[in-house]
Structures are given as structure tokens and as C-alpha cells.
């Protein structure tokens, strides 16, 4: 469900958080949808339940998910992405790597912008058709 690279220097809980957010963006998880319990998630991916718990807590703190006592954890209905300073620099770094690759492949500036536009449309399409 979520790609975890245990050998990466990104802590596993941070990878879960990123994976969940990516899932929401792609429409794999919908607002109001119930998430697997910490126990199921840990078993499904053979991860330490404390790590999964930590990721869930952080997602809750960021208001991406809400936990209803006795019912479980759900994707928040009113999750509004916000641009946080620290995250922004991470996003920039990710883009930069992609841009370098594209330039090496001989993309022009205009072609690159088109590429980004197409990707955005593709993702929006995914979200709607789900």
C-alpha cells in the first residue's frame, strides 16, 4: 500500500506520513475513509507498531486524519493542505532533482512546463474518476 524503504535515511514513520499524503492526493484514500488499525497496518507491512502509531499521531496532529474513540482513524473531511516552510524546502529539493534529470534528457524550459501541466491534469483526473 505504501512504499517503505527500510534502508533509507528517512525514518520509517516519516515515510508512512508521506505515503498517506500521497495516497490522499492521488485519491486512493478519500475523505472520511477509515484507515487500517495500527495493528493491521503493522502486520500488513511487517513494521513496528510503535512506528505506525507515531505516524498516525503525527498525521492527526497535522489534521490529516481524525481518530474517533472506539471507531478508528479516518481521513479528515476538512483536510486543507497548507504550505509549511520546512516542507516547502523539501518539495523544492524534489522538484530540483526532477528538473536536472529533464534538462539532461534535453527538455527545453517550455517542454518541462508542459510536462508538469500534463502531470497535474493526470493527477486531478485520477482523483475524480476514483
Amino acid at each position, binding site marked *: 500500500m505504501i512504499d517503505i524503504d527500510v534502508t533509507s535515511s*528517512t525514518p520509517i514513520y516519516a515515510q508512512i506520513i508521506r505515503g498517506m499524503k500521497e495516497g490522499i492526493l492521488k485519491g486512493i484514500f478519500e475523505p472520511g475513509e477509515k484507515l487500517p488499525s495500527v495493528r493491521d497496518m503493522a502486520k500488513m507491512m511487517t513494521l513496528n507498531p*510503535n512506528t505506525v502509531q507515531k505516524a498516525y499521531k503525527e498525521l492527526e496532529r497535522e489534521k490529516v486524519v481524525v481518530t474517533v474513540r472506539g471507531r478508528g482513524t479516518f481521513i479528515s473531511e476538512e483536510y486543507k493542505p497548507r504550505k509549511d516552510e520546512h516542507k516547502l524546502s523539501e518539495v523544492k529539493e524534489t522538484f530540483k532533482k526532477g528538473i536536472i534529470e529533464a534538462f539532461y534528457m534535453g527538455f527545453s524550459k517550455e517542454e518541462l512546463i508542459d510536462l508538469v501541466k500534463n502531470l497535474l491534469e493526470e493527477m486531478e483526473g485520477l482523483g475524480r474518476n476514483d
Partner: protein
Amino acid sequence: MIKVEGLDKYLGGDKILDDINIHVKKGSIYGLIGPNGAGKTTLIKNLVDIYEPDKGEVIIRGENIKDNTKIKSRLGYVSDFQYLYPSFKVREIVKFYKEAYPFWNEDRYNQLTKLLKLDGNKKIKYLSKGMKTQLAVLLTLSIMPNVLILDEPTSGLDPVVKRKVLNLIVDEVSVSETTVLISSHNLGELEQICDHIGIIHEGKILLEDSIENLKSNVRKIQVAFKGELPDDIKKNEHILKIESIGRIHQIVVKDNLEIVMEEIKKHNPILLETIDMSLEEIFVYKMGGEGYGFADIAL
């Protein structure tokens, strides 16, 4: 939950364990990592009161483990080799466990046997190695342990069985908040389920920390300048190591990534990025400074 303080152990005149100190918190999965002959099994045998420490003590759930049947009745132990009577049938072993452990839970056992499709009428000697390990793990889980000590439970198992065994442990921790200590000579095998690790080498604990801390403490930066690498970066106190290939320099930083990044930015680098490091790599750098080569530890 598990606390070892100043433990020494001699076997056949040799000092096998030298001033061992470890701490395992409740509900944590602790990986004890070290090469063959480092003292993992000896330490574990001290933990479960098979060996008696020559110095120091083992405290489990606040009490000294020595001859402590109360603590041991809920101390799960899977040894590196399964000493189960070969001519016994599986259900006869179960009877044996039932007699020995006061908190034995039959429902739990039945539930787990179904999950693993284990035939109670089979004789132990006809079980494969993987099956024997799984049987040992599920017998141990059925005594309702609050501390679980596993000596290389995954060695020699195929990936599917290995995952099954690890999942049994993971599930146990989620449901019962069991404290787990698990040993292996292979760090990669435990990395995904452990939250803390202790590295043992030649009878000494070289390092004990949470995986998260380790990962955030040591980072690697890749940087390139138009000219030479500026001198004041070379001399920066937070840098563990610099490796240069042409104009590209890979810099390993301890603790103060931000400070070093700021310092580098002042010199207008043409390339500046942080790159991923595996836990194994991190050890190389952490251990390198203490005179241990990676090959010595051979994880």
C-alpha cells in the same frame, strides 16, 4: 522493562561478556546485533537465567531474574536451537508447556495453530526447521509473555516464513504491548521492526540507541564548488568525514546538519544536496571513529 547493569561473564576461562549495560523500554522491540561469536547468545542466556552473571545483574520488570519463577513464568524465550523432544508429538509438547506455565492460554494456542496450519499429531522430528521455529514462537506466545526474548529466530528461514515469524511478533507487540528483545547478525533483517538497537562486538556493547536517532544524527551532504573546497569547511568541527571525487565532495555530518549547510551556502556551491544513507553506512561512520572497521562488525 529489561535492564542489564555491569554484566561480566566468563566461559571456560575466557571473558565472553565485558561490562554489558542495556536498557529495553516497555513495548519496545530491541534488536541485539552482532557478528557470530560476539556474545549475543551468551548475553541472552544470562537474560533468561540459564547462565549466572559473574558480575552485575539482570533486572526484568523491576526484579532480579535469578531464580525468580514469578518473572520467568511470563518470560517468553525462543532459543537459537529448538530443544524439543524429537519423538514427541506436537500436542504432547503442548501438554508439557501447559504444565510448566501457569498463564498458558489454550485459546491463543489454538488460534495461532490454525493460522500457521500446524498439525498437532505430527512428531517433532518430522517438522522442518522453519516449522520448528514457528512452533517454538507460538508456544512461547501462548504462555502470555510480557517479555519476549528471541535468539536469532529468523536465521535459516526462507523469506515467507521469516515474514510470518516477524508478523507474529509485530502483532504480539500491538495487542499486548509485549517488550521484545531479538538478536540477529543481520541488521537489515531487523531494521524494519526494531525501534531500538544495541550493537555487540567482542563481548562489549558498542552502541545503543533508537533507530530514529541514529538516522537523524548522521547525515551526508553532496556538494560541489567552482574552485577548491574552502578551508573553513574542511576544518568544520561538525564534519566526520569528507570524501572527494573530482570536484564533488561527500561530507558526513554529525548532529548539526543545518549549521554545516548554512556554512557551505556562504561559499556559493554549484551543487548542494543531502543524500540518503543506509543504517549500515551510518554504523560505518559511527564505528569508524572508535577504531572498528565495518568489516570487523560485518553486519
